[in-house]
């Protein structure tokens, strides 16, 4: 049986979602622990989230 490509796209989106969720969660914990570093943590968080997002979109456009 052939698995349609859209299933793969869905899997990638699940993966990207988990990834961004983990980044957000970890950033939240880090900021709660060290509020004075909020700015720096936010920057790194956004960059990492943007990179994962890029992979997610690349997979969706490969469909």
């Amino acid at each position, binding site marked *: 049986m052939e698995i349609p490509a859209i299933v793969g796209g869905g899997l990638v989106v699940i993966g990207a979602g988990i990834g961004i969720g983990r980044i957000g969660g970890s950033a939240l914990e880090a900021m709660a622990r060290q509020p004075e570093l909020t700015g720096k943590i936010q*920057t790194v968080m*956004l960059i990492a989230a943007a990179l994962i*997002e890029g992979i997610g979109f690349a997979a969706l456009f490969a469909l």
Partner: protein
Amino acid sequence: MNIKTIIFTIVISVFSSLNILAEEHMNHGDKDIKTEIKETIAHHLMDSHDFVLTHDISFSLPIILYTDGNLDIFSSSNFHHGTTPHTVNGRTYSLDHGHIIEASGLHPIDFSITKNVTFIMIVFLIMLIMFTRMAKSYKKNALPNGMGRLLEPIVLYIRDDIAIPNIGEKHYKKYMSYLLTVFFFIWIINLFGLTPLGVNVTNNIAVTFSLALITYVLTTVTANKSYWGHIFWMPGVPIPMKFILAPIELLGTIIKPFSLMIRLYANITAGHVVLMSILGMIFIFKGWVGSSLSFGLAFALSLLELLVAALQAYIFTMLSALYFGAAVEEHHHE
């Protein structure tokens, strides 16, 4: 501007977008509603040769074609929205789904001032006025007023939080003009996409490609010896490993701007598609429950899109600065 004004503006803009969708709906009522919504969305995402505000108000834009060594310039009103072909200098052009084709099989190169080009020019003018006024306000005294006061925090933010930490004190100055330009350009043009004018410039992949290309060229041209050294002859690894790493690193230099291009394009396209689909739900449900649900969702999503518009501009600028920083970084190997 207070919060009430912002909310009011968004409500008006959602209503007007609805108006655009409704107008399209009235035009051809004989098709299946779902295909019609799909067609409307696809049409909305495309660049066009005329600028249609509503069914009654539309502007024709100039068409500039370079066919077989000849330049043909005429107004897009000659096509009557793609229904009739137009003959100029013995060549007959017709509009086929937004693309111009020539009757006898010649391939015209399209330099037309399309809707996207028009709005890029408008943003160029807005930025020119904004920044000349900002510069002028500093000439009178050190404390800015008017436009200068509005923009100073953003400009300082880009310098102090994006450029200096990523590029470094020594080299950041030569990249500042590009970083500021690209930030304000993407931000303003994304905000234009949220107005009911129906423009989307950054969801045209050619536009984001050009922006990414500038970043790539700047990185490549200004890179120092150590940057190229880390690509072709990675220091500190065994010799066979250097041969494996070189092609990977070389590919990496192209993937970086490529991901910049895809990210901006995909984010804005996805936002527009979801927003239009949610508005389209009104015509599928045909009742007050579906309509109010769809309106509420569209309102919330518009707020999110406001954030995304600024966030994508920030990410693009930030990553560009990061790549420039990698290109001019100085390494000290002992």
